[in-house]
Every structure is written in C-alpha cells, then in structure tokens.
C-alpha cells in the first residue's frame, strides 16, 4: 500500500513534468511513422480480416453440415464432421479474442456467440416446446440460449460421446437455427472489418491519426492493440482458468462438453502471438518489427514469455475439468506463465509503443 502510494506520487510528479514538455522534444528518430502505418495496416489485413474470414467460413460450413443432417437424418460420420468444424471455428474465434475491440464488442457480437453458462433449464424447455426455430426466433433468444456453447452441448452431449442416433429431430431443428444464427453474426463481424464495407473498422483502425473517427492518433491504435493483448491474458489466466481452479469447481468450466478448454486457452495465447508477430497465414509487419528496431532484448523477452505460456499450457495433459484436481502444479504454472506474459506486455510493451508512436 505505502509503496504503491509512493510510486504513484513519483509517477504523477514525473507526469506533470512530462506534460510540460514540448512535442518536438520527442526526437523524430524514435517514431517510425512509415513502419507504424505498415504495422496497423497489416494487423487489419493479415490478422483481423483473415481470422474473421476463417471464422465466418467455418461457421458457414458448420451450418451446411447441420443442414445435411436435417435432410437425411444424422449419421455418426456427419455428427463427427460437425464436431471437427465446431472445433475449427472455435480455433479462429479464440484467436480473435486477442483483439476484442471494435465491432465484436460495440455491436455486442461477443456475448451473442460466446456466452457461458448455457441456460439448460430453458434450453430443455425450448426443445420440449413447439416453437419453430427460425434464425429470427433464435436471434431473439437471450444470449445463454445461443452461440457456440448450446451448439457444443447438442453435438457433443453431456459427456462428449453423443451418438447421432441420440439426436432427436427437434435437436437438429434447434441446431439448424443456432448454426444459422452463428453464421449470420460471424459474417456480420467479417464484413465489419472489410475495407469496402460502409463504416469499415479497417478504415477506423488503419487511418488512426489520419482522419479516423475512432482513433485520433496512431498511438491510441497501438495502445488499443496492446491493451487487448493484455486483456485476453488477464481473462484467460485470472478468469477462465483461475476462477475454476480456485473454486475447485469443474461446473464453472467453459467448453466442457467438447473438452476443448485447454485448446481454447492455447488459442487465446496464440492469438496474442499472431498480433505480436503480425503473422497468421502469411507474415507481415507486426509489433515484433517495431520492437526489434529499437529493443532486441524486449523482443526476445516477449517471445520467451509467449513460448513459456504456450509450453505451460501444453504440459496440462488432462482435460481442464480434471486437471484442476489431477495436475494442480501444471495448472498453477499456466496461470503464472500467462500472468508473466501479461506483466511484460503491460510494463514493457505498452510503454514501448507509447514511446515509439504518436
């Protein structure tokens, strides 16, 4: 407490001094505007647009696969194909959680596709009822009745072992409405970042400091990127994992039916890695290039922290709901490694981009 207060006074005194500085004191050589612009452009083109494209494409495939089950009855092969596609869509979505800003947040798409827990009481009642599960009907339901997790529950079953024969016609009807709604929402998300769309977030982001209505400076866009990376680290380590781990309560686990939680967490961190490297299916200018230009040691440290976190995640070999009991040391290591990454981003990368963009 005392130390913190003292640190704060120190910081505010320094801040007052900083506010008194003229802009031209920040030497031009510290800000490479050309590279900064490239990094922002590449984030939108190579990461955001590509990841959202993949997400939309996978959910579209999932919808088609559900339609096929509706047409001629579900087979185990078809149901398995749905599960695989669900996991692929999930991979894109979890990687995109490293940049939860813009339309995914302001258009309220995140809670509509990824709310946990599922409202099982009402879900069962819906299935027992007589409503027609049109896409519009599903869209109007509350968040805990739609999106990834009700789909997961229906295609994996409570224990992840559901057989196609257990899928009732009404289940498939509901699945159809759910997957169509997921397809529509993820398609909206994809479109929202495309350069040609009206009100495109690509323009809002890449024209930061150059006419953007959202980001008055490139600095604010860089802060947005780093804050989002920190945000997902915090969410994974201290929310998704630690909340369940501390409570020792597997019923709090997200994605329990598919036993996909550890993969989800890993994809969150891979999402952070994508943003840092500016690399997804292709490699372009990323924060990495900016950091390397001025501070190789920091670049090494960030990469080390990312790989430590991913390695720690890999050391948890049991499904997450079991690992909180069977592998407590490994789970604690994950929490610690991700928090270390978060701290490095917060204490070093954030000040770095504040120094090297304006």
């Amino acid at each position, binding site marked *: *407490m*005392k130390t*913190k*207060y*003292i*640190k*704060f*006074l*120190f*910081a*505010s*005194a*320094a*801040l*007052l*001094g*900083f*506010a*008194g*500085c*003229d802009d031209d*004191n920040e030497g031009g050589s510290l800000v490479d505007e050309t590279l900064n612009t490239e990094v922002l452009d590449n984030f939108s083109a190579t990461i955001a647009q590509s990841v959202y494209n993949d997400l939309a494409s996978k959910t579209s495939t999932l919808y088609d696969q559900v339609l096929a089950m509706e047409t001629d009855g579900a087979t185990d092969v078809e149901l398995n194909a749905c599960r695989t596609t669900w996991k692929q869509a999930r991979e894109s979505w979890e990687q995109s959680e490293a940049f*939860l*800003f*813009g*339309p995914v*947040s*302001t*258009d*309220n798409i995140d*809670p509509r596709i990824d*709310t*946990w*827990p*599922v*409202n*099982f*009481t*009402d879900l069962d*009642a*819906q299935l027992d*009822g007589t409503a027609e599960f049109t896409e519009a009907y599903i869209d*109007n339901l*509350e*968040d*805990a009745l739609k999106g990834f997790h009700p789909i997961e529950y229906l295609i994996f079953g409570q224990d992840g072992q559901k057989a196609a024969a257990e899928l009732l016609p009404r289940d498939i009807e509901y699945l159809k409405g759910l997957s169509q709604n997921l397809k529509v929402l993820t398609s909206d998300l994809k479109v929202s970042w495309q350069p040609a769309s009206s009100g495109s977030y690509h323009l809002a982001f890449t024209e930061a400091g150059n006419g953007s209505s*959202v*980001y*008055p400076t490139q600095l*604010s866009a860089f*802060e*947005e990127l780093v*804050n*989002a990376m920190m*945000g997902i680290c915090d969410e994974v380590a*201290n*929310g998704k994992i630690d*909340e369940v781990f501390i409570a020792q309560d597997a*019923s*709090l686990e997200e994605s329990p039916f598919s036993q996909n939680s550890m993969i989800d967490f890993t994809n969150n961190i891979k999402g952070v890695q994508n943003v840092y490297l500016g690399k997804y299916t292709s490699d372009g200018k990323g924060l990495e290039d900016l950091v390397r230009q001025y501070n190789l040691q920091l670049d090494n440290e960030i990469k080390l922290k990312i790989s430590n976190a991913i390695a720690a995640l890999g050391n948890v070999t049991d499904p997450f709901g079991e690992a909180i009991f069977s592998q407590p040391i490994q789970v604690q290591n994950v929490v610690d490694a991700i928090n270390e990454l978060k701290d490095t981003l917060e204490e070093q990368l954030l000040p770095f981009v504040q120094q090297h963009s304006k």
Partner: protein
Amino acid sequence: MKEKVIIRVSILLGALVSIYSCIEPEPLEESDYNEWLSGGSQTVFDNGAGAFSSIFPNLAETREEVHEVGDLAFEQTFITAPSPINPGLGPIFNNVSCTSCHINDGRGKPPADGEQISSLLIRLSIPGTDLHGGPNPVPGFGGQLQQRGIFGSSPEALMKIEYVEQQHQFADGETYTLRYPTYTLESPYTTLPGDLMMSPRIAPPVFGLGLLEAIDEVDILALADVDDTNGDGISGKPNYAWNVAKGNKTLGRFGWKAANPSLLQQSAGAYNEDIGITSFIFPSESSHGQSQYDGLADEYEVSDSILHAVEFYIRTLAVPARRNADHEDVLAGKKIFVDAKCAVCHVPRLRTKTDVSFPEISNQVIFPYTDMLVHDMGPDLADNRPDFDANGQEWRTSPLWGIGLTRVVNGHQNFLHDGRARTLTEAIMWHGGEAAQSKEFVITLSKADRDALIKFLESL
C-alpha cells in the same frame, strides 16, 4: 513520521526526474490539481476500448481483489433456476447481466430499426406517489417494464419506438436534424391503465461513480438555487429520494433523475428490476404479485458479499484522463462552453469530501462536469413522469467526463436519457428549459466556434 519523509523525498525525486525529462524545464505550478486528471489521483491513461474499465490506480492489493470479484460478478450471465451456476434469472427481466447493458462499462444505445430494446429500459408509473413519495407503481407492471421472460413467462409488453425527423437551422444557415421519438407499448400481457406514464432510460457509463458518491452533500447543495434567486434563469434542485438501507429520504445522486441515493441501492435495484435477482436491499422479486411470479420464497439470489463487491467494483472504476486539453481549438471551445453558460450546470470542478475510511476517494479534486442537481430541460426532452422531487421536465445534469471516448468504447455517439441524440451537436441542440439560453447561444455561433466547442467536449 518516517513515511512523510519518504513521500517528500519521492516527490522531490519525481520533480527532479521531470525536470530532466524536458530540455526546457518549466517550473511546476503551485496548484493542487491538474485539469488533465479528470478523476484526480484516480485518473487513468487508457483512451481505447477499455477506457471506462480501469481499476483505481492506487488500490491496495487486497482491495484490488474485491474489485476483481465484483468485476466477474458484473460480467456474470444469469440463467433460469434451477442451475448449479448463476441461477435466478427473471422470471421477467430486461437483460441477463450487468455488462450486457453497460457494455465495456459504458453507455447503452436505443435499438436499431426492427430490434427490441436491450440497453434501454422503461420506467412506468401512474399518477400519485408510493408510500415513500416515489413514483406510483402500475398494477400488474410495477415500476419498470420487463420486456423479456424466461421460458414460459410472458414479457410484460414489448416496446416500439418510432422517430420523426425534423430539420433545424443554425444562424449561419447550416442545418441539423433532430429525431423525435414516440414510445408505444405493444402486446401487453394484461391491460395497461389509460393514465400510464413512461420514462425511457439508457444505461449510463458506470466509471467514476465512487468519486461522485464522495462529493460532500454540502458542496452539492451550495450549487442549488431552487427559486433562482440569482436570476440567471438556472435553478438547480436537489432530488431527495428514498434510501432503503437508511429508511429515510436522502440526497439522490444517481440515475437520469438523481432518484437514487447510493451505489449500493443503484446496484441492488438494477439486479432486481433489470435481471430479476433479489438481494438484502430488494428481497422481493420484481414480478411479485403478477402472474409471472413463481411463488417461491427463495433465498437472496445475489449474496450480500457479492452485492457489496459489485458496489465496490463500480465505486473503484477510474476516470480516463483528458486528451488534447491544451490544444488551441480545445481551449477556445472551453471558453465558449463557459460563455454559453454550459458550465453553470455542467460544473467542471468539484472536490470529494475527506473520508479517512476510504483514502482512495478522499479529498480529490475532480472534473466531472456536473452539479448533481436536476434542472428543467424543457418540454421536448420531458418524460412527464415525476420521480421523487424531480418533476416531469427535470433531469439530472449528466457528467461529461469521458464523453469524448464514447465512440471508441461503445461505437456510437448516442446521448441523452433515451439516446435520441446521434452526435454531440444534436445533444446540445436538444437542450431546452433552463438550458434554452445556452442552446440559443450555440445557434448564433460561427461554424468554427461550433467545431471548437465539439472539440472541447471530445477532449473530456
């Protein structure tokens, strides 16, 4: 004693560092506040999507934990009971979690065409007052519309909003358009009374509220001028509202009409009316006495400690610092803001009271741009529904801090109590009643001056 020395030394060190960080050092000013720091020492420097979501920068670690518990609860999605986790939703409700209205701890917006309301709620009453002098609840509907129900429970009614656009003109000939809303309840589950009164309310941002709660009541009352004795046409009025925990009427501070006296009651009220979650403050279901009521005498659906943690979370959300406060256009806009008498109600600077039990919010100079009082805003903005001492034309002066970050946090610029304004300019031009003179002043401004005024608001 030793502490003091350490602190003094660290200030000196800080000052020293700051001097060396400039090539041409300027002397530190002899002031105890800094206009860039809207939230005093509880100011943060995030101007992105998370700008309203930062914790106080100087909370002790144990208190940070409480904030985080509250944060998780704020995000928690409630579902239908029975359930091992998060049970208790409804049976009738507006939304499923705190954050689904206060997205990113920020501001809601009215529904798009064809959508049902989500982050906008409708207060209801009939003429008369309740036992405590508050709005008189509507038989069968209570004090608030719940437009959703869990499976098998009828929503009370659905809301239809229609807008009529009308064009207006500045003195220089440039036009602007305002959209005038009408609100109609559709498909009510039972008969609505003919003398129904409705008040639409957008979910407001929730940061900085701990500081507003900590302003000394005396300082707020000093700004009041109920009978306009100074003859400036502006008569701020305190709204005294029922304080459930205290069992008497106390100064209202929160909500669009300042009809809520504390963050605890505000949080408990939102749990109860908006989500259908009972607590020790409001132990009775919002559906009590209606056909949707499940008749189960449950325990409190949110525990005392979680409710307190959510209150603490909201109380300790920091205020984003200003941007570009020294830009010449911003400074010009600030002068216009003062000349137009905006600052008479949107009071820039206030001080929180000394509170030794809560040092983080004690004795802070803050820049919230509100007087915490209600004012007559004219017939166009009126909801014509009294709420304790606030009449049907009176609204509380909204704090303006952070307003320039609404777009990056929430992706829109919908302002005022029902989000009818689509830009800051529209929000200004809706002002009437006591604020009519300010609006008239703005009408006569040149384009450049209008732009400067907006630029100033964007810097808050």
